[in-house]
């Protein structure tokens, strides 16, 4: 237990420098990207003098390191800047979008991860037989379909032709009140999350879970417990699964870390008002404050998810606690 606590502490302390580096990188990337933010801020028709005033007003004429320190100082106060495009503080814009994306991605991922892992374990228990073959081939086929193409196909069939589901958006206009609104959001979420689950999460977790179980079942320690007369059911459930689940958790961490920024295509196809569409538009409109804020949130998310995944791995596998 001592080992585990110590590991978590050490692992959490490593976050500080990582976040700092991410912040500086974030700042630099935006600074070196093409286009003059002062020009964008002042507007296309602004005169030279107006552009210069804007530059001074926003401190864009000051030396880089000063800009960096004031950027970091603002962050510490929770000020992520102001979006001219939305006429709102960046933090407000993000806080509207982040939950939408998380709702879509986390729902799809948790469902897809569970279904995929269960199917993968099942396939592994039927290793080499017809069931295993069918599951593996099917999942690989779905995985090789481009997400946006499959999404469009679903829209075409189930939204436009059959009219079972809405073809885009987040919530119906008429949906007022808590319950009706929730139902409407769920309704809008069906097609995008089915797309994500079938083309991404189920195949990914099916394959990793299957491969991991198959590998573990060949380990010497499995032969040991089998040769010691442990019932086959327990060999599988207690000894094999406990070991096999470690790579699945790590894979879950990896995909979870992409949650905020990894579904741009799906959000675009279904006009889902999340982080993906926000960033896509921010790039086109050179909305730098929003872009920087989005990067920042995404980076902090990645770092936190990895921390949680590492802690889970350490709980499951005593060997990593000392790594």
């Amino acid at each position: 237990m001592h080992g585990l606590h110590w590991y978590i502490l050490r692992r959490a302390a490593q976050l500080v420098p990582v976040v700092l580096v991410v912040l500086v990188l974030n700042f630099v990337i935006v600074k070196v990207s093409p286009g003059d933010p002062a020009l964008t801020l002042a507007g296309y028709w602004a005169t030279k003098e107006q552009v210069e005033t804007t530059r001074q007003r926003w401190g864009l004429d000051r030396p880089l390191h000063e800009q960096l320190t004031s950027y970091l100082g603002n962050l510490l106060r929770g000020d992520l800047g102001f979006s001219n495009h939305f006429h709102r503080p960046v933090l407000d814009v993000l806080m509207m979008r982040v939950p939408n994306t998380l709702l879509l991605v986390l729902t799809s991922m948790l469902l897809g991860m569970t279904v995929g892992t269960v199917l993968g374990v099942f396939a592994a228990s039927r290793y080499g037989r017809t069931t295993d073959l069918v599951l593996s081939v099917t999942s690989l086929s779905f995985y090789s379909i481009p997400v946006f193409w499959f999404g469009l196909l679903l829209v075409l069939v189930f939204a436009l032709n059959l009219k079972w589901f809405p073809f885009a958006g987040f919530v119906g206009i008429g949906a007022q009140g808590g319950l009706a609104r929730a139902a409407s959001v769920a309704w809008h979420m069906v097609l995008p999350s089915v797309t994500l689950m079938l083309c991404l999460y189920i195949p990914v977790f099916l394959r990793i879970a299957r491969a991991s179980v198959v590998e573990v079942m060949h380990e010497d320690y499995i032969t040991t417990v089998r040769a010691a007369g442990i019932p086959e059911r327990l060999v599988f459930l207690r000894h094999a699964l406990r070991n096999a689940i470690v790579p699945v958790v790590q894979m879950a961490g990896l995909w979870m870390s992409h949650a905020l920024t990894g579904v741009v295509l799906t959000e675009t196809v279904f006009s889902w008002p999340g982080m993906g569409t926000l960033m896509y538009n921010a790039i086109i409109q050179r909305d730098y404050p929003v872009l920087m804020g989005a990067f920042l949130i995404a980076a902090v998310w990645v770092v936190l998810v990895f921390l949680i995944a590492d802690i889970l791995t350490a709980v499951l596998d005593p060997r990593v606690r000392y790594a």
Partner: protein
Amino acid sequence: MPLLEVRDLTVHYRLGPARVHAADRVSFTLDRGQTLGLVGESGCGKTTVGYALLRVLPENGVIAGGQVHLDGSDLLALDAEAMRRVRWRRLSMIFQGAMNALNPVLRVGDLLEEILQTHEPVSREEARARVAEQFEQVGLPRARTHSYPHEMSGGQRQRAVKAKSHLGRPDLIIADEPTTAFDVILQDQILVQLQEIQKRLGLALILISHDMSVIAETCDHVAVMYGGRIVEYGTVDEIFARPRHPYTIAMLSSFPSLYGPARELLALPGVPPDLTAPPVGCAFAPRCPLAEERCHAEAPAPLTLDGDETHWSRCHFAREVKVSALAREAAGAES
């Protein structure tokens, strides 16, 4: 009645369309309290025989024929549940390469307790006490029961694996290369300990090794394997004093004696046979200094040898002078 009687045990591994004939009509018997050495070069099928006795072959392994009687019951005819109850309780195996033999996510003590409680209706506390006691008997401190395998040295893990086997007080332990990975001092300790336990519990032991000196020190009987078959069988005295198979002779003469350099009189040229297409004749023929035409065409049957009680050899010429002459020549070079 012997404790273990193996007759014509034949094991294949499926390898795509091919079949690896890893054990071919293997027969031997073993009495209570006795030690049998199973010896032969790498890949000749020693581990396969051990796996087959316990019926824990990898999933592409098939027992294609034969009988295994342990204390009268036919192991190959038992259903899965009955076989499960035989494992560990009556027949236990210490696997080759104890490095990875323990579940890495479980504390070693917990694993052993689980095994014990699977077979016996004992309380948690009693199981714990017995595991700790067994640890002490194999020379591990009690506190080691709380360790994970990766926190132990190779030798300690080997001891833990041994504790696991002894804990069940089986009638028969199969120890697969228990000493190979360790230095000479540890090797001796391991062997001495195995023999001690064997005496105390009166259990029979199958010692798998490719090291003739280990076999000479510890065994009552020896079975020499080559290319999936037992080519010679006899008591330690018979095998070491009067080997009657050219392969045994070659092995004895090429193993380095403790007091001098290895004699290369009968160094083995060539490679072991391809077990996916075993030769029709004697498997050793391509490498045998005495091979004749007949050897390539006809597989030798076991020939019993006069004067020796249990001794037999699968060589056409086992009873003829040229084999005993080869043996004398090799022994001459040795001394």
